[in-house]
């Protein structure tokens, strides 16, 4: 049952990524992630209109989908499709940054807790319990009030509320790795604890965190949309567009709320498909099918 763990270097993840090629659903997911990323990167080239400049207020306001604006226009006559493309940059960037930051915090803290054990373990894991028991909404108002609403503040709050999950994952892995031969060998060679943790233990314990991160991107995009919905969001993010739309759909402008939601669903599904595929590869017991 012993997994073939390399003692040095990167975890066996890249080869696993290649193995995703065999999973058709995961392929769809990868294609979706790739497509949205390309569209977001190329937004200035692809978008037919400027996302912020208002259109002709007499002619362009709240046009239904069709003609020059195939997703319609908003209350200021701005093209919804162009706003979505630029919004993809904001939403993806915020989600990726928040997930990466929370994983980084979680991996370091969880790694220290698992490897050093004892007092450190208690401190980190009890802090995690406290964070999980505080409603996100309250953390949110406090941090936003302190930092002023900005993309960085949103990323920070999302990361600060989400690190316990990766911390628990990495801690569990490290507890199971801690007494393996390769760790004892490294200790016998007199390597520092820091080096053993960073170079030997964490790389070998990363696999479940990577799966959780992939699944976490979609989750974070939804969360960010929720923040925008409550009025604390990043300008031009998909959540903010959705909120604009929600305030106007009762005058019949359904396209304002509809398309940003479709975009969120599309990206989230794509990331989840990739995440499910990764999980199947890492943990063959849960494989959903050939």
């Amino acid at each position, binding site marked *: 049952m012993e997994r073939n763990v390399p003692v040095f270097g990167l975890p066996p993840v890249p080869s696993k990524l290649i193995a995703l090629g065999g999973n058709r*659903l995961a392929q769809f997911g990868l294609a979706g992630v790739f497509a949205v990323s390309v569209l977001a990167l190329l937004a200035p080239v692809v978008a037919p209109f400027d996302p912020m400049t208002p259109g002709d207020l007499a002619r362009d306001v709240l046009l239904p989908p069709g003609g020059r604006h195939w997703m319609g226009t908003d209350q200021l006559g701005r093209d919804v499709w162009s706003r979505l493309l630029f919004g993809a940059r904001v939403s993806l960037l915020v989600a990726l940054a928040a997930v990466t930051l929370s994983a980084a915090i979680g991996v370091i803290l969880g790694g220290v807790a698992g490897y050093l054990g004892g007092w450190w373990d208690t401190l980190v894991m*009890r802090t995690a*319990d*406290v964070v*999980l*028991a*505080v*409603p996100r*909404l*309250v*953390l949110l*108002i*406090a941090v936003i*009030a*302190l930092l002023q609403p900005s993309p960085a503040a949103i990323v920070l709050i999302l990361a600060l509320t989400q690190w316990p999950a990766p911390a628990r994952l990495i801690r569990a892995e490290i507890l199971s790795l801690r007494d393996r031969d390769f760790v004892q060998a490294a200790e016998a060679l007199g390597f520092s604890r820091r080096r053993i943790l960073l170079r030997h233990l964490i790389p070998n314990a990363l696999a479940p965190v990577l799966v959780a991160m992939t699944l976490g991107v*979609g989750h974070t995009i*939804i969360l960010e*949309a*929720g923040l925008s*919905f*409550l009025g604390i969001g990043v300008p031009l993010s998909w*959540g903010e567009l*959705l909120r604009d*739309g*929600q305030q106007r*759909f*009762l005058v*019949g402008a*359904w396209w304002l*709320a*509809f398309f940003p*939601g479709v975009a*969120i*669903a599309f990206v*989230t*599904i794509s990331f*989840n*498909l990739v995440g*499910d595929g990764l999980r199947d590869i890492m943990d063959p*017991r*849960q494989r*959903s*099918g*050939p």
Partner: protein
Amino acid sequence: MTRFLLRRLALAVPLLLAVATLLFVLVEMAPGGPEMVWMGPGMTAEVQAQIRENLGLDEPVTIRYVRWITSVAQGDLGFSHSRGQPVAAVFGQVLPETLLLTGSALVLAFVIGIGIGVLQAARQNSWVDHGLNLTVLFFYSLPAFWLGILLILVFSYGAQVRWDWPFHMPASGLRSIGYEQMPLAQRFLDRLWHMVLPVTTLVLVLAAGIARYARTGMLEVLRTEYIRSARARGLPRRTVLLRHALPNSLLPLITVLGLYLPVLFSGAVFVETVFAWPGMGKTMVDAVSTRDYPLVLAGSLLFAVLVVLGNLLADALYAVADPRVRHDA
């Protein structure tokens, strides 16, 4: 078992104290306080000071902290400024509405989610399985409030304004105008009618998550030896699935149940906001925007208590349901 529960409860006390302190500090650091509700730009400094004094805000932070902690520990949750009522009275009004909404949604979500998961596992890799997989993933990947907006758009706005359907759903609130004049049976139907859309929204999103767990759990159990031997003894497929496999496959769902306990009481913030459902979730959002800190603090603390209780409940249920898990220590 009793000793285990008592020990866990004892451990929960310092945790909750830490959470309460953190909450107090966070709220203390946020600029603008409850006095903002009454203060206008034209007020003299004396009036402003008087307002602060009336609210007890002129005292030093430490004194207010100790006073708050001790009164909460004695069961006094404080006074909600924005609603002009004791916090406990506010909870008394909104908690039943939230329990009605989230309780019925959770029960339906567990029944439907488990049903879907079992069906998928029983027909693993068939087109039914794959189709349901994608459907479940779809609802799992949606923001709940967007789903709510779409349902309002179709069944409330569209049905009424665009397509002129013979019926349309209420988009918000608990009851119709003229509810007081209705006979009892009609009142019941009216309340039920108002629950349809918000409950559907919640059920779709929650059931999707539950179905994912249920399917995995079921597949795991179906691979075990005792299922194979039950089959080998010639038991009907149906009996093996429902009587032998299902109970054991539900074990992982106990964790999910523990995670959902706080949601049951804290309410579904987004769904309640979309459907203007006056429950805990919406009350907390309103409390935040009116800076009603006693209400914010009490609601958050209630949430924390429920998180702790949810974990405890899950562990205890495990011990009862699964003889392999025993808490001796």
